[in-house]
């Protein structure tokens, strides 16, 4: 990345303005309903977090550069500038005060995709040198090391080795012609390694061939979070190249919200060509396995539990029914929180917010929304399917002295997995 500057920032934002963006600014009537959908506004009461306000710098640039009237206004000195001060002032709105959750986009009466615009405007902020430190560090590590948290292949190999010892199951690396390429997020590798074990056991029972790629085991895309398409493209390319090289049919995105958005929706557009493989979220795959009878479950969890929809997976990813299908198979007392499903509220830590230390306090305030949802419901367990949501929820719950365990859905499913092919057998084969 070359040296940042305000000029570069403005150019980057200009480049992001397309017909949809122009139509959005043109249609906005300042109704303010987007604020009512945004947890950063509802929990702080500060109108500056109104979603459409977060993209005001982009609006100014659009008006001045792409409308005759705006150009005329500028000629008469009647347009508001976008300068260093603007970037400085809006930085915390664009990064700290927005998790790219997309709720605003769903409620805008004129149909504006506001969260999409916020993602776009981040390109300008990053280019202007106004991205949060935590995200800069994560992206740099992702580019140089291959993981935003500095996880290297030997770490994954160590976990694989020990998985083999514990379960007798092998995790294939770089297996050509495997049906599935499984991606992992650094958060899972470091904090929830049970995920890998769950995958291994499930894949074994389903009788499916799978592999991870030594050159592209990382799913997390820091480029998408910070808003630097070049980095996002580089990270996605690693996965695409590996998938092509290994000739897999389907790439599986793990329980990480933005990883799914990056590989499923952004990837092809970042690299400029269509994929030669499918991309599915792990929950889609599990739901398929269950409905096709490839894996069976036995026994059920009796605790009263509910499901938190990760924004990128449910609202933006369209994976809403699948986790519910799965939970209904392994839980007797699954209740929905209010606004559950497509309109669920963000955990407060998505879109790079949890990686941004400066945003910690704001994040905890925004978490009060989720807290209200949970308090109204009164459950014993909270299930979700995103490693980042998990930790954000745990932290928020702890801060509010709420004793509520949070579990990952894939892990939970694996606990009730019927292991018809005894692993003992696998041990002997191993």
């Amino acid at each position: 990345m070359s040296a940042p500057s305000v000029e570069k920032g403005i150019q980057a934002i200009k480049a992001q303005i397309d017909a949809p963006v122009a139509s959005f600014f043109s249609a906005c009537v300042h109704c303010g309903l987007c604020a009512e959908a945004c947890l950063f506004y509802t929990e702080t009461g500060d109108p500056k977090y109104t979603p459409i306000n977060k993209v005001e710098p982009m609006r100014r640039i659009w008006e001045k550069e792409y409308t005759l009237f705006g150009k005329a206004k500028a000629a008469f000195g009647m347009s508001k500038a976008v300068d260093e001060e603007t970037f400085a002032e809006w930085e915390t709105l664009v990064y700290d005060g927005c998790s790219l959750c997309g709720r605003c986009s769903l409620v805008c009466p004129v149909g504006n995709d506001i969260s999409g615009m916020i993602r776009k405007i981040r390109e300008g902020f990053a280019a202007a040198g106004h991205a949060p430190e935590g995200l800069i560090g994560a992206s740099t590590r992702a580019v140089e090391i291959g993981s935003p948290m500095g996880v290297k292949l030997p770490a994954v190999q160590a976990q694989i080795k020990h998985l083999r010892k514990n379960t007798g199951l092998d995790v294939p690396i770089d297996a050509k012609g495997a049906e599935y390429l499984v991606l992992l997020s650094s958060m899972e590798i470091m904090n929830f390694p049970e995920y890998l074990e769950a995958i291994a056991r499930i894949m074994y029972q389903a009788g499916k061939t799978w592999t991870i790629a030594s050159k592209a085991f990382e799913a997390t895309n820091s480029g998408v979070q910070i808003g630097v398409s070049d980095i996002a493209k580089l990270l996605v390319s690693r996965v695409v190249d590996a998938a092509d090289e290994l000739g897999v049919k389907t790439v599986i995105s793990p329980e990480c919200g933005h990883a799914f958005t990056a590989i499923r929706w952004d990837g092809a557009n970042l690299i400029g060509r269509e994929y030669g493989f499918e991309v599915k979220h792990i929950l889609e795959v599990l739901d398929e396995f269950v409905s096709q009878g490839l894996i069976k479950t036995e026994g059920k969890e009796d605790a009263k539990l509910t499901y938190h929809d990760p924004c990128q997976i449910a609202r933006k990813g369209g994976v809403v029914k699948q986790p519910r299908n799965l939970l209904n198979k392994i839980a007797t007392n699954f209740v929905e929180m209010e606004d559950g499903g497509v309109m669920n509220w963000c955990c407060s830590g998505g879109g790079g917010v949890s990686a941004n230390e400066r945003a910690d306090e704001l994040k905890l305030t925004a978490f009060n929304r989720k807290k209200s949802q949970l308090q109204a419901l009164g459950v014993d367990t909270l299930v979700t399917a995103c490693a980042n949501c998990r930790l954000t929820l745990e932290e928020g719950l702890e801060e509010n002295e709420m004793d509520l365990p949070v579990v990952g859905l894939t892990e939970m499913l694996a606990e009730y997995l019927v292991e018809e092919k005894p692993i003992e057998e696998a041990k002997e084969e191993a």
Partner: protein
Amino acid sequence: MSISNDIEFRDALNGLDLAQQREVGALFVESVLSLSSDPRVTQAVNAAKDGALEEEAMNLVRHSIKVAALHAHTRCGADGEWNDQAGYFVARAAEACVEPEGRSQGKGPAWKAAMSARMACTCLAAEGDEDSHDSESQTQYQILTSYLDA
């Protein structure tokens, strides 16, 4: 009785009642205690071994170790330090030992403690040459065997 693999290990653990699982779990954690410098871990281990501890005191310990585990994890996008991360898994193991009854989601507290303890060893293997995971499994088998024989 001798335990030589995880199937036998888990079966034996499932045969224990809650108090026994906590005691054995505590032993598993003690075996990897050197990987954590958090005094709350020791506190949790002691509480797990103390069968006579009142529920209220236990709740205080639970809260304390939960916080310890939570704060020990690596933040999303942060530069991960595997040696520190080992401390996270030790705290998780200790947390499992004192978790309230009925929190299993299919796994018993002793099993959870054992797995987390092993993951702590895996962390060390991630960075360095030291790979004590397999020997830790063996150690756990021996701990359980001795416990059952006693």
